[in-house]
């Protein structure tokens, strides 16, 4: 994880510097005081400076030997869940909220741990229906509606 952390601090340094440059373009001092870029410049500078400081400070860094992922299974679960969520959001404008939920929730539950498809679908159906009933029908919250209108 040490290398990852070094990379992260490099991101802070480079990112902060980029923000500073962009802020200068926005203008540090306007005609009547601070310009658009002053506060972002300060913030970007702090990020960059801290990025360097973390690298130099012994105590702030993660202890050596620590790993990013707890174990391979954990990594699998997290990546699968994120993937499903991304797919769900991509599909939602077309499929609508309720339908997307009906499809995604069983996938999520299965991706994360052992449970039967039946169990997963039942939970998904109950959850999606309840949310639809309460929020869409009763309270009339606007939710993404797909091509089917759900």
């Amino acid at each position: 994880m040490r290398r990852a952390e070094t990379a992260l601090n490099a991101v802070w340094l480079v990112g902060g510097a980029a923000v500073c440059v962009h802020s200068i373009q926005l203008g540090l001092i306007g005609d009547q005081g601070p310009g658009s870029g002053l506060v972002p410049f300060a913030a970007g500078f702090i990020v960059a400076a801290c990025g360097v400081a973390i690298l130099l400070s012994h105590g702030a860094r993660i202890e050596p030997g620590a790993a990013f992922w707890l174990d391979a299974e954990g990594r699998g679960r997290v990546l699968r869940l994120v993937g499903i969520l991304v797919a769900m959001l991509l599909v939602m404008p077309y499929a609508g909220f309720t339908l997307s939920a009906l499809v995604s929730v069983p996938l999520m539950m299965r991706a994360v741990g052992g449970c039967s498809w039946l169990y997963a679908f039942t939970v998904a159906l109950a959850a999606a229906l309840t949310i639809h009933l309460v929020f869409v029908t009763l309270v009339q919250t606007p939710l993404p509606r797909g091509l089917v209108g759900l």
Partner: protein
Amino acid sequence: MRNWRRSIATALLAVATFSPPAHAQSNADGKAKIEKLKPKDFPTQPIEIDVVYPAGGGMDINARLVAKFFEKWTGAKTLVNNRTGGAGLVGHTFLASQAEADGYTAGVISNLMFADAWLRQNRWKETDLEPIAYLNAEGLNLVVNASGPFKDKSFKEILSLAKEKPGTIRVAVVPGSIYEYMIEQVEAISGAKFLKVPFQGGAPGVAALLGDNVDIANAFYSEVRSQLEGHRVLAKAITSAQRSPFAPDAPTLNEVLGTTDVVWAVTRWVALPKGVLADRKAYLAASFITAVRDPELQEEFRKLGAVPDLQYDTPEKLAAYITQIAERERAFFIKSNRLK
């Protein structure tokens, strides 16, 4: 929880059926016209009325009132949505470029849209939003603290003071909107020079005025009504074309400056995304116009400080009027170097 929804529906229905007969007469032809224009199987789901500003604000209140009366006259259901963000930019962009032009989405917008269309993006134009029904207009009230140094001065005197001592009189403005443009134009014409302190809306400016942190605030009537009635502030000028009935002693900008085209009001209307089918568009136009003609709604508008106007009763007349307003603003933007 379902009970109160039903009781509200019943209450609204009761209100609808109890409209005085005389008024029902003058708008009865409106209702018949709506029925005649109703296309087959439209609408089958609620019509979304988008407001580009947050719930509870002036535009939102106007929109919800319009929605209520629209439902009363058509029996169709509506859903008021606040699509906020970017001081209106997100909502305008949605209506102009992302909303389906199927008649199920309408927007309550205003001339504040022009700045977004011309100055802030290139994706859509103001012609992507087709006006169908005029709602009302209201001007900004320029107010001073009733216990401050300007309480006895007329606006003309304030202008000459601002000319003698430029940059000392503090005015609350909202950058990038008609608050700012209006003051700029006043300065350009009169030679006065104010110190423009930026705020996010009219109400924070009024708060600052009460605390003597600015000398003049600009606000719509609903933002300043209680302070006017409570004699905490005094209205010194109004930016609309006519004087306001709530501050009859406050002259219009045109009166003070001796001009005829310095008008900075918020004009509100209902618009549809371009490309809605002609029959649906006609139906919606007739419905909204009939709703607006309801004397009850007009009274509600007036209570809010907004002035209804029945002369723009077809989409064509409205479009022509809006083009006029657009041209005036465009001229100002070009003159102030915001637009080429």
